[in-house]
């Protein structure tokens, strides 16, 4: 059964029709990537799933339940976490406080909480070293780690990652993608939005290509990577 499903979703910003009937299926255990050029509607898709935006038409289903009329703070409790575009770290809170907020919906005195925190610190040792530092003073890469770590602290079934590699040096990009794969291997389903189609297609199971608010291609990541149009438009090959 699909874990997360978008059916013919239309989302607007006022009069701007950003998503024009998007349908996406994410199965349990998968890494699904959503690629597309600037302004295609990738972030809009993630914001619609997490409840920050409401679709005007269409449905979002999680474990078969409609969630497109729920507020974001209830959706996260179902097990959907988002590491938003631009990281959105709370700049005047410490690293630890940012992570604690990720676990806001859980009991902070429970062994599970401590286990989650250990897990995040094991994935990102840099965060352990800097746990008393203010979020706003972290480097871009560290902020990205914190954003992912914070999303993991919600204990999600599915994590929505919006361009985790944006603005990172190549070494760090590799590292982040390794970690995404590891997170998936540990049992979390991943919906990954990326400009870096090359890397995204390398780690994903399946892929969707979004173009001006419409899905124009969907297939296994391998097949999408071999698609000629995709190679020209997104992989810089010809």
């Amino acid at each position, binding site marked *: 059964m699909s874990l997360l499903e978008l059916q013919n979703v239309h989302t607007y910003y006022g009069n701007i029709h950003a998503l024009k009937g998007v349908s996406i299926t994410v199965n349990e255990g998968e890494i699904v990537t959503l690629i597309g050029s600037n302004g295609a509607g990738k972030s809009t898709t993630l914001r619609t799933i997490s*409840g920050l935006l409401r679709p005007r038409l269409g449905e979002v289903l999680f474990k078969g339940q409609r969630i497109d009329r729920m507020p974001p703070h209830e959706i996260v409790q179902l097990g959907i976490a988002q590491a938003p575009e631009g990281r*959105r770290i*709370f700049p005047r809170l410490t690293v630890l406080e940012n992570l*604690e907020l990720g676990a806001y919906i859980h009991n*902070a005195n429970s062994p599970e909480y401590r286990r989650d*925190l250990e897990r995040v610190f094991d994935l990102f040792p840099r965060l352990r070293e800097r*746990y008393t530092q203010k979020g*706003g003073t972290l480097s871009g890469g560290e902020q990205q780690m914190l954003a992912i770590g914070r999303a993991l602290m919600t204990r999600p079934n599915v994590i929505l990652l919006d361009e985790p590699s944006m603005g990172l040096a190549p070494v760090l990009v590799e590292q982040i993608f390794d970690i995404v794969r590891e997170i998936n291997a540990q049992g979390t389903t991943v919906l990954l939005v990326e400009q870096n189609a090359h890397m995204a297609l390398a780690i994903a199971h399946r892929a969707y290509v979004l173009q001006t608010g419409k899905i124009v291609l969907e297939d296994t990541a391998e097949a999408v990577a071999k698609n000629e149009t995709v190679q020209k438009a997104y992989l810089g090959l010809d």
Partner: protein
Amino acid sequence: MATQSEAGAISAGTRRTTQMLLNQIFGPLLQILYFVIGSAVILGTIVIVLAFLLQGTRSDINLLQGTLIILPQVIVDSLVRGFLYAMIALGYTMVYGVLEFINFAHGEIFMVGAFVVAGFGLMLNSAGLLRDFPGILFVIIAVLLGAAVSGILAVSVERVAYRPLRNSPKLVLLISTIGMSLVLQDLVRIIATSTPLGFNARVLTPDLGSAIRLATLPNPGGRDINVIIDARSMIFIVASIVMLIFLNYLVNVTRVGKAMRAVAQDRPTASLMGINVNNIIALTFLVGGALGGAAGVLFGIRVQAINPYVGFLPGLKAFTAAVLGGIGNITGAMVGGIVLGFLEAFVASYLSLFTAGAFAGANYADIAAFSILIIILIFKPEGLLGEATVQKV
């Protein structure tokens, strides 16, 4: 480095050290203390130097003696005014922190607190209980009552008049807050004039104790200087400090406090953490309103005569104090209040002394204090503790 091994050992800092806790609660108070001492020293030095320079112009009194004799009292007065503005300013700054608009009805929330204590005193009096009521108990009950009424009122105002407009332009919201301010004034006026309270309500209290002598300073040139603080001022200062400690605990240590700070920094992202943003905003109004109401009660107890318009000027000044401290910054609001209180009290007391009464100081205190404020803000527009505005999310 100690912190690294420690980080691993305490399960990566899930348990906070007592030291951290104390820092979070008392750190801001320490900062207030610095500003209190700083303001007292700077302004004290200025008046003493002025007195020394102007000494020759006056034959009627010994200016230097006079300056020194009233100085302790002026500082007490500064503290009372300072904490008054600080407590009200918190309401402005907290609401601005989460919603980025100025709630001009907050002065009236404060005024309602003053009427709560007036009503409470009147009721006790007509029941014949007032005279023998223990003073401390009276203050505690009145403060809690005023905080509750004002807090709930503030939440209701937000729900009715601000939340429906949340996505409207800020100007529309601003007009709504001014409208609410007038509505509350007139509501209280109607209630007061149709009850035994009256338009000019007296705040009846039991005996709250007499003045306390804190110290006697030797004064080689004349009679000794007694540092005296009257009981009502003492109550004001102590109660304010207790409430500021409580606020720091709430905001910096508790889970909801963290949620409040998160909502203030980034509302959509806070909601992605599972925080119910509307509840946190309501809570912000509750806490800000409660502090304003408590300040109103203490103000009422101290001045003993109030009317439905007493919220206007303190509200405006507290708003200025919030801006002075850096709007949106909680410690900044406290500090801004203190600084404004000191400026005002010093001008009010010394202007007439230095000009031989040509300028009745009290009448010029506002002008002088506000002029200084404007000057400070020209040179430091983000406020004393404000971060550069670009950093504000």
